[in-house]
Every structure is written in structure tokens, then in C-alpha cells.
């Protein structure tokens, strides 16, 4: 066993010196390899962190949302609907919600405007608003600043910024403006007693599907949205975006794969000569293959570790600056927030499998071909 370990040490030692002797070529390959791993890992880490963030943020969302549909379009909820739903078995709490969109012609962006339940932690008084971080950043708002918004009637309404919404919730609140129910109704001309939709809290979350069926029976003109469906929608949005970015990157990945395979599958005359010499002085074919295998492993593992670490820092320390516009947010006001660092073993293994293994294996065939040639060619100087 000791001899085996010593032998591996010698082989690795020789491998490292062999890599150092072809410094330019190997450093070039390493840089390119690292870049590819960095790009792929960045996309994977970022979308995975966004999915987690969305799931965490939606944890406090209502179990069920009911909207009224008229001619296939979302319409206001009549006053009696809340009472009808409150009577259903399994419903713990019903709450009418008021929300809409406000287009800011100066920023050329839509804000999401909501009226939070009065008395809640996000509740605001009449004449006041609470704004999301990105809205505040773009307009330059601070606490107690004044903001002018144009109501449905064309009248300019001034609000005082009572609060900036927390950075922790920025993924969902970046473009949000909260105002009191009274202000909301007068600002948008909303009829009294009517709501945008109804939020339900259920007694047993396992029963949401049954409850959805009951709601559909009782209010046939309604659309029932479950929290898990919203989460699925977010997931599919991020999956779709991840897919698009990966597709765009696939050109670079394929180009690298061709380059790496060509590098791995062909040997320079210098390398062939070296293999011949090693065989002639007593190295076995297996020793030569092991040495070259170590070489492939060292390059691919180093590139993987460097690329993955760089991607980790890029995503979790520098807010994924490269992919932010493509992968994050859903309005023109992009949230700016720090993602919680997470590692997914499965994604890590997948990336490892598709980047390290192919390269390490691709090096074996040409080495084997060269290593089985007769060592007497060295004696003749024909290598």
C-alpha cells in the first residue's frame, strides 16, 4: 500500500511538472474552462437562489386567492362575495384585497399599488404611502419625502412617504407602493365595498384543492388561485429564463467542448515523444495513462473549483451583476437585493458531471493510443 501511495505521489509530482512545462497552453485552457464553469454555475446558482427566495417570500402569502372573471377578464369582486366565501367550511379567514397598477410616465415603469389591511404591520395612514426600495431609489425618495401621483381623474395627489419597505422582501416589493384603503379607493375611483380579489386563509392546508372545488361551485364566475400555483408559476418563470440563458450560453459551451475535445484527443509531437521515452525507460502503459489522467483531472478539477467559487462570489457577493437584467424581477423596476447563499448538491453534482468527467475521460483515448506504441520507436528516434 505504501509503495502504491508513493507511486501515485511520484505520478502526481511528474504530472504537475508536466503541466508547468506547457504553461501557456495549459493556462489558456484553464482560463477558458474556468470561464465556462463560471457562466454555467452562475446561471444555476442564481436561478436556484431566486426560486428559494420566491418560495420564502411567498410563505406568508394567503393560501387561496379568489378573483372574479367577467367575459374572461379579471373584474371587481362584489360586496356579497366575501360573505359567501366566509360561510364555507374549512375557511378560517376571508379578506378583500385592493391592488392595481400605476404607470409612471417619467420612469416609464409600472408600480404595483396595494392597500394593505388596516392595522397590519404594513398599514399606512391616509395621505401616506410606503414604497419599495427600487421605487425609492429611482425617484430618490427618503422617509417623510413627498411624492406626487396622478389619480384616475387626472388630479395630482401628494403623498408623504411614511416608510420604505424592507430590503429582505425586495424580490416581491421592489415596485410596490402601499396606501390606505381610503386613498386607494379615491385615487383609482374604486366603488365602495368592492375589492380586486379575496384572500382566504384555510384551516387545513391539505384541503385547499377540495376547497377550491367548493368555491368554484358556489361562485361559478370566479377564478381560484392557490399559493402553490403561484409558487409553481415563479418556478416556471425562473426555469424558463434559466433555460433561455443556458441556450444562449450553449454556443460558448459547444465551442469550448470542441476545443477541449480537440486538445484532449490530440497529442503534440512533444507529448508523443515524452510518452515514448517514459515507456522506453520502464514506465508501463498503465503508468503513462494514470499520469495523463491525473493531468486531465487536475485541469478540470481546478477549473471547476475556480469557476464555481467565482460564480458563488459573483452571485452572492456581487448580486449576479452579469445576469441581473435577464434573470431577476418581472417589471421594469428590477429588485436589488442580496440573495441568501445556498448550495444544491444535485445541481453541483450535475455541473461536475457535465464539465469534469467528459474532459478527464476524453484525455484517456489518445493517451492510450500513444502509450501502447512500441517503445523501440524511441530508440530509432521516429517519435
Amino acid at each position, binding site marked *: 500500500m505504501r509503495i502504491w501511495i508513493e507511486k501515485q505521489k511520484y505520478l502526481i509530482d511528474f504530472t504537475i511538472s508536466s503541466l508547468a512545462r506547457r504553461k501557456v497552453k495549459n493556462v489558456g485552457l484553464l482560463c477558458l474552462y474556468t470561464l465556462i464553469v463560471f457562466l454555467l454555475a452562475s446561471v444555476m446558482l442564481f436561478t436556484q437562489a431566486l426560486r428559494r427566495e420566491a418560495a420564502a417570500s411567498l410563505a406568508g402569502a394567503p393560501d387561496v386567492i379568489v378573483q372574479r372573471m367577467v367575459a374572461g377578464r379579471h373584474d371587481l369582486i362584489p360586496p356579497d362575495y366575501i360573505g359567501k366565501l366566509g360561510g364555507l367550511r374549512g375557511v378560517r379567514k376571508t379578506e378583500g384585497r385592493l391592488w392595481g397598477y400605476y404607470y409612471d410616465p417619467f420612469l416609464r415603469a409600472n408600480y404595483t399599488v396595494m392597500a394593505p389591511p388596516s392595522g397590519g404591520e404594513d398599514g399606512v395612514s391616509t395621505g401616506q404611502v410606503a414604497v419599495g426600495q427600487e421605487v425609492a431609489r429611482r425617484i430618490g425618495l427618503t422617509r417623510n419625502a413627498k411624492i406626487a401621483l396622478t389619480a384616475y381623474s387626472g388630479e395630482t395627489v401628494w403623498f408623504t412617504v411614511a416608510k420604505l419597505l424592507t430590503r429582505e422582501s425586495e424580490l416581491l416589493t421592489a415596485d410596490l407602493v402601499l396606501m390606505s384603503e381610503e386613498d386607494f379607493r379615491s385615487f383609482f375611483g374604486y366603488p365602495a365595498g368592492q375589492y380586486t380579489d379575496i384572500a382566504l386563509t384555510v384551516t387545513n392546508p391539505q384541503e385547499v384543492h377540495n376547497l377550491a372545488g367548493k368555491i368554484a361551485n358556489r361562485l361559478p364566475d370566479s377564478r381560484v388561485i392557490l399559493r402553490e400555483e403561484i409558487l409553481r408559476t415563479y418556478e416556471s418563470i425562473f426555469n424558463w429564463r434559466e433555460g433561455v440563458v443556458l441556450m444562449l450560453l450553449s454556443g460558448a459551451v459547444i465551442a469550448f467542448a470542441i476545443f477541449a475535445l480537440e486538445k484532449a484527443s490530440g497529442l503534440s509531437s512533444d507529448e508523443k515523444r515524452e510518452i515514448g521515452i517514459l515507456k522506453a525507460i520502464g*514506465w508501463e502503459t498503465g503508468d503513462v495513462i494514470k499520469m495523463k489522467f491525473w493531468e486531465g483531472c487536475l485541469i478540470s478539477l481546478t477549473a471547476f473549483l475556480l469557476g464555481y467559487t467565482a460564480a458563488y462570489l459573483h452571485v452572492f457577493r456581487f448580486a449576479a451583476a452579469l445576469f441581473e437584467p435577464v434573470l431577476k424581477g418581472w417589471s421594469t423596476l428590477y429588485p436589488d437585493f442580496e440573495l441568501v447563499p445556498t448550495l444544491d448538491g444535485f445541481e453541483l453534482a450535475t455541473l461536475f458531471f457535465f464539465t469534469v468527467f467528459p474532459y478527464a475521460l476524453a484525455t484517456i483515448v489518445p493517451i492510450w493510443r500513444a502509450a501502447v506504441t512500441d517503445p523501440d520507436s524511441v530508440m530509432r528516434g521516429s517519435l
Partner: protein
Amino acid sequence: MIELSGVRKAFNQGRPNEFWALNGIDLNIAPQQATVFFGPSGSGKTTLLTVVGCLARPTVGRVRLKDRDISGLPERFLTGLRRRTFGFIFQQFNLIRGLSAIENIMLPAYPLGGDWRELKERAEFLLDSLRLSHRRTARVEWLSGGEQQRVAIARALINDPEVLIADEPTANLDTALSMEFLGILETLAGQGRSILLTSHDPLVVESAVVRRVVTLRDGQIVGDR
């Protein structure tokens, strides 16, 4: 020690350019003496050396090493046998560029996996005995022809082989360096090693260290003295 019977060696067998480099060699090489394969270019000297040194297998015939038939041994066993028994000095030296003299010398011992300190001590001893200590960390491409050859000799000796094989060892050396090489050979022969050389250099053939000269022509032995 080494016995060849009816050995023939073909290249490109079955092709239009088939060529028989050895044509029925019967030879018995005794231990602890220096033997030279002598002959003009293309006479089969190097091919004979590769067959004797287990670098190549004969196409026809048998090779016996210490009464053991090694003609049909699988490559792995043949490599092990070669590593234990033979040390090679190639005409072009075949040192690995970019490595230092001492690293080149230690290379044949790597697959054996011995203790690193012992290996280094052995390599340093060889460097010292070949008057190369001052060049131990120099990259081999920076060494002179004579120094490169001495590194090649040290590399051939690192596994303490019984037989030293050298192909045209003086072909790239001037007279002074050739004489120096023959001096080293004399020392090695004095240590009881068997030495097999190919050469068409009269300086080597007529040297005092050489005990036997086997003359080849067209792949056949035409003289043995």
C-alpha cells in the same frame, strides 16, 4: 545470460514495404562483459539491441533471459523485466526537456514507488560519480552534449540494472568526450555490469573495455570475435 535463437524481425509485415531487419540471429551473450554490435548503417545493429533489451519482440525465433523464454511475455511483464534488468542510453539521449538533470535521472524509478529520500540520495550519488553535481538542478536542454550524455548514463543506472544498453553512444560526441565515455564504461564494467553497445566508431570497437565484437551485415552476423 541472454540467448537468441533463430531470431528474425520484420517491419511493415504483410505490406508492400515489408522489410526484414534481422535474418536469423543465433547469439549467446555472456554476463559481465562489454559486447559491441558493429556494422554499417542499416545492418540491423539497433534492431538487435531493441530485441535483446526487450524494447521489441522478435517476429520469429526465441529470446531467453537467464534461461527464461521471454519472447511471448505480455507487454506488462516485459516492461517490468526491462525495468529491473536493463538501463538504456539512447543515441539522441532522449532526456525530457523542461526537467532538471536530477528529475530526469529519477524518472525510471517513479513507477517502482520507492522512498523519495533514498531515491534522491541515489540520484545524487550518480550525479556525483559522473561529476555532474554542480548541474543537478539545471534543465537538461541547458547542458552540453557530454553533460547530457552523462545524465542519460545516470538515468540508465538509477534502478541498478544488470545490463547497460547504449545505442551509438559516441555518435554525437567529439573524440575527447568519446574517450571520457569509454572511461565511464570501463568503471561500470569493472563493477560487474554487462554492457551492450552498437557502434560503427573504431574508437569504441578497438577500446580495451570491449571484450567482444559482433559484426552484422544485412541483418545477419558475419563476424564474432
